[in-house]
């Protein structure tokens, strides 16, 4: 600021007096301005905010309720669980002892000392159940070999092949079984031992495995990210989601994410007209505006940040494929008010609180990694106010998610 006396006096003189107001100047200017927009009822926004908040709370409450009802209170060892446990935990089982083989048990239980009631004349050896063998390949390969050797030795020593005798000698420890072929030195004959037993026992097939896999992991949290492509929402998203099964193959899913949108399609509009644009016809001297000079005070809207809440209900079609549909609520973070986008014919509002609908299909690449495709449609024009034109933030998002099962 100048300290010169003349400058100060000049400033004072120019501030003292006022220019005469000319109403016709306003009339001329008002004709160049875009048309008025209908007003938004303040209550409308507030009402929807309350409703969506209530819906979010209800969705979360349901998720928590079902989580405790179907997951936490579920018996720890039902049939499948027991089977699964028996099969999966088997690798820690010690190599079968002679007693175990002779007592025809797959459970490792301490046996009486050798001097006790041990069926010394047991001639028939019942093989391990197939599930155990099938699921404990690493450790049971040696176990099987051991049992085969023991059986072969016994057979050589005693050469007994009678079910009645087995029953007599082993008492209650051995369950009577149909006639079994004896264990021989020939491997191809010995295979029949297992074929018979296997037919009566539950099998672990690939289908069973998938079925168990499908039901496993009732609740999980996921960390994900994605890229959006849309009419005005090329951008990125990163978020956390939680999912829990509610009934059968149905699940609820809630996602909280941060979104960054590069609002590129509106950049030109927000930069305003170039000074040499004759359509505005406001230049003091038309020829003087042939040079476009940036106006530093005006910054275009390019980057919009949102926080998103996306509750959804879905169905697990297949162990690897799920579809879901849900509401989408996004709150703009870097602008407090709704943004009005001007265009030649009409103005549209970029809502501060954006309500939409999402449909999502997900595919499990691995048990923990999912790829998803989301389609979002804005609903503001339908549900907020019929007379307002909102920008429909419609986009497709490609998403990848890493799931961490909680149970």
């Amino acid at each position, binding site marked *: 600021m100048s300290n010169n006396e003349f400058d100060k006096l*000049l400033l004072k003189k120019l501030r*003292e*007096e006022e220019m005469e107001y000319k109403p016709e100047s*306003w009339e001329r200017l008002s004709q160049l301005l875009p048309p008025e*927009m209908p007003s938004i009822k303040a209550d409308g926004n507030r009402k929807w905010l309350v409703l969506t908040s209530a819906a979010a709370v209800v969705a979360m409450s349901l998720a928590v309720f079902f989580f405790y009802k179907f997951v936490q209170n579920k018996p720890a060892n039902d049939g499948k669980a027991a089977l699964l446990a028996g099969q999966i935990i088997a690798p820690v089982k010690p190599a079968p002892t002679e007693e175990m083989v002779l007592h025809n048990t797959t459970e490792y239980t301490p046996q009486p000392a050798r001097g006790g009631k041990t069926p010394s004349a047991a001639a028939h050896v019942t093989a391990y159940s197939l599930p155990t063998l099938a699921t404990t390949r690493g450790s049971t390969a040696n176990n099987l070999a051991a049992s085969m050797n023991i059986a072969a030795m016994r057979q050589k020593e005693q050469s007994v092949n009678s079910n009645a005798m087995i029953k007599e000698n082993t008492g209650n420890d051995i369950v009577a079984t149909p006639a079994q072929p004896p264990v021989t030195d020939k491997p191809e004959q010995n295979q029949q031992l297992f074929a018979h037993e296997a037919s009566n026992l539950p099998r672990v097939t690939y289908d069973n495995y998938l079925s168990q896999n499908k039901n496993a992991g009732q609740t999980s949290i996921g960390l994900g990210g994605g890229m959006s492509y849309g009419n005005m929402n090329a951008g990125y998203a990163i978020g956390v989601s939680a999912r829990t099964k509610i009934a059968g193959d149905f699940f609820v899913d809630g996602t909280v994410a941060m979104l960054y949108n590069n609002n590129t399609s509106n950049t030109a509009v927000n930069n305003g007209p170039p000074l040499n644009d004759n359509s505005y016809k406001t230049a*003091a*001297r038309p020829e*003087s*505006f042939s040079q476009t000079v940036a*106006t530093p005070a005006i910054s275009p809207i390019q980057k919009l940040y949102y926080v998103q809440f996306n509750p959804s209900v879905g169905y697990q079609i297949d162990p690897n494929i799920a579809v879901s549909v849900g509401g989408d609520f996004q709150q703009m973070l870097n602008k407090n008010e709704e943004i009005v986008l001007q265009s030649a014919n009409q103005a549209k509002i970029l809502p501060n609180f954006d309500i939409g609908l999402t449909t999502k299909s997900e595919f499990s690449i691995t048990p923990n990694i999912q790829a998803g495709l989301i389609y979002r449609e804005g609903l503001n024009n339908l549900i907020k106010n019929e007379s307002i034109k909102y920008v429909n933030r419609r986009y497709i998002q490609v998403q990848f998610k890493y799931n961490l099962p909680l149970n």
Partner: protein
Amino acid sequence: MPEYKEQDIIEGCRRNKRQHQEQLYTRYYNLFLKLCARYARDMHDAEQLMQDSFLKIFNHIHDYSGKGSFEGWMRRIVVNTCLDYLKSKYLKSAMQLYFPNEIGESATFKVANQALDRMAMKDILGIIQTLPPMSRAVFNLFVFEGYSHKEISVLMNISEGTSQWHVNNARKNLQQKIKASQLTETKVL
């Protein structure tokens, strides 16, 4: 028309409400017209510059983040519009290599100050408008907008020394013209 608060005016302008826009226009008409008049060549240009500035303000009001003074934000738009006008092709030739004759130090500033005190605003603006475009712009930025010579040098793409030279010469030029106009008036009387 009801008197709206500034925040209501901003909100209304964002929705292109004519009442709010008109109130903003009338509220700042005087300030911005005087501002434009200092940069313009005549009052007609000044009015056109003001209209251009208001149009930009209304079309870009959604860019106002709410941080800082709203008047300051608008004022920057008006000043930039005026500078764009001065930088335009039409006046470019007039700005380049225009060095008015050095004004002698003999002019008595005291007389000029007394004369200025007796002058009407329109006459003062008229004298300012006769300044060479570059000197007018630099003088306005320095005296009325409070820019430093360093800021002006960046804004106008000139050196700080040149900025100081323009301010001093504009001042001397104004003082001499004010004194001359006062002498003319005295002779007429």
